[in-house]
């Protein structure tokens, strides 16, 4: 048996309520492996924010998740509008989300900052007009999980 897991999800761009599916699935798997609750929470938040971002800005996309002994790597890919100014987008509160989206309580400009805050490594590869690929890494604490 190999000690690595690869999961891939399609994130439906038309459905807010569908966002969170991948996040919930990852939580379940990490819990079964016995990863500590804090790490699980960090992964769940990163994934959820990533899913929501793809729904709001890019009409959906794909999420690939790799889990091994070191930690979790999440690769979120979309064919959306791309990010013109990454530095600006990383600022808390900055958002290009439309009014309708904000009325729903999304688009507060915390998505990317949260992903940065809760991951150990974050890489954004984006091109205006083509799309965005965000790679997030959350490392397990040394000695694996404690199950708590």
């Amino acid at each position, binding site marked *: 048996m190999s000690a690595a897991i690869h*999961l891939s999800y399609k994130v439906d761009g038309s459905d807010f309520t569908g966002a969170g599916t991948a996040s919930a699935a990852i939580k379940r798997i990490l819990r*079964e492996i016995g990863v500590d609750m804090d790490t699980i929470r960090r992964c769940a*938040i990163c994934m959820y924010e990533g899913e929501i971002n793809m729904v709001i800005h890019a009409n959906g996309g794909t999420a690939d998740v790799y889990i091994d002994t070191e930690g979790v790597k999440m690769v979120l890919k979309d064919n959306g509008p791309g990010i013109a100014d990454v530095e600006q987008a990383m600022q808390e509160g900055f958002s290009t989300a439309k009014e309708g989206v904000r009325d729903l309580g999304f688009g507060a400009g915390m998505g990317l900052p949260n992903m940065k805050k809760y991951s150990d490594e974050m890489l954004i590869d984006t091109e205006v007009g083509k799309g965005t690929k965000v790679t997030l890494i959350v490392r397990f604490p040394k000695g*694996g*999980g404690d199950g708590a």
Partner: protein
Amino acid sequence: MKHSVTLDKERCRGCTTCVKHCPTEAIRVRRGRAHIIEERCIDCGECIRVCPNKMKKAVCDPFDIINNYKYKVALPDQSLYGQFRNTGDLNLILAGLLEMGFDMVAEVAEAAEYISMAVRELLEKNDDLPRPLISSACPAVVRLICMRFPKLMPHLVPLIAPFEAAAIKSRKLASEASGLPPEEIGIFLISPCAAKATATRYPMSLENKVVDGVLSMTDVYKELLSAMKNVKDPPPKLARSGPIGVGWARAGGEMYALPDKKCIAVDGIENIIRILEDLEDGMLPPVDFLELDACNQGCVGGVLTAENPYVARAKIAMLTKQIPESENKAMSPEKFAMQMELVHAPAWKLDDDFLEALKKAARIEELRKQLPGLNCGSCGAPSCRALAEDIVLGIGNENDCIFRLREKMQNIAGSEKADDYLPPPFRRGKKREVHDDESQ
């Protein structure tokens, strides 16, 4: 066995209704009979509720048990007051219990008022406790949190349940009233559900049992109806609870007792799991108090109640408007403090060794993709994902899947026409791509 949900093996037909409805995936069908994986069961009673053959039961004690004691105290759960269409007179209902052979009644609703006041004090004075505080009144919820949401355990209100408070207080009162030593007093909870029945037998936050027996509310109800007819009019004044305590019987009742606090009340076990997931992820708006009732509509929706939960709920709502405020005075929360710390009971870990667990999880994902993703339940597990898990944990077999088995037989027979032999819903034509977002 540390549970009160049990199966009547004779009557189980091996259908998978309960398997599908179990919120913690604790049931499997094996050899034509349902089996409960005990460490996963939280005694919520969903399986009892949905069983079409009525083969699942909550284990309660026979009524005769009260005769083992010289002095008998009834602890009617507050949901009892919602069971009678013809009367809203609490004194009549309680006098009926005395008529049935009890020497004393101690309302759980009265104790609920003390707990409500103590929770209010905790919310106002104790800043060491995390927010939101989560009600610890529903034992199924407490079990769920201890099993699946250990991170949220510190949020649970660190007080004993109302029926426990009522039992402790009434043993003392009964001993004084009768002159008998406390151990000769018999205390019996009239329970609306399996979870409370279990909680009396295996207390989670008390050092010792404080209740001597559990009577099913439906069983008591039938006898009580006729006993109430023998009560002389007007019935003696026995009720000591007011609208707050009685209101606990329905979902939202604990919340109504905290009118100036930000509260969310959730009923139904599936809804509760969802809100706890959100709380764990930090997705909830800031609130002071979460009231969680495993049964829809709250305790009036318990599987051992007699009345339709919606009718009972309306009855309770009406009573809370009609009955006078109680004279119960606030007591210090310390009086109701839990005596034991709650224990985390993990039931969702694949292996104690991290690397082994990871390997098993990888294997589960691999297997899941090979299974048809129909979640048909024919293998006896609630979903294809659960079967994959069972296979890896050694309690299931790949051939338990009839579709996998069919493929194998086909390969052996060299035929590709097996689809024609399947019932229409299961015919699938060409093979379909499986995504990870399926069969969660």
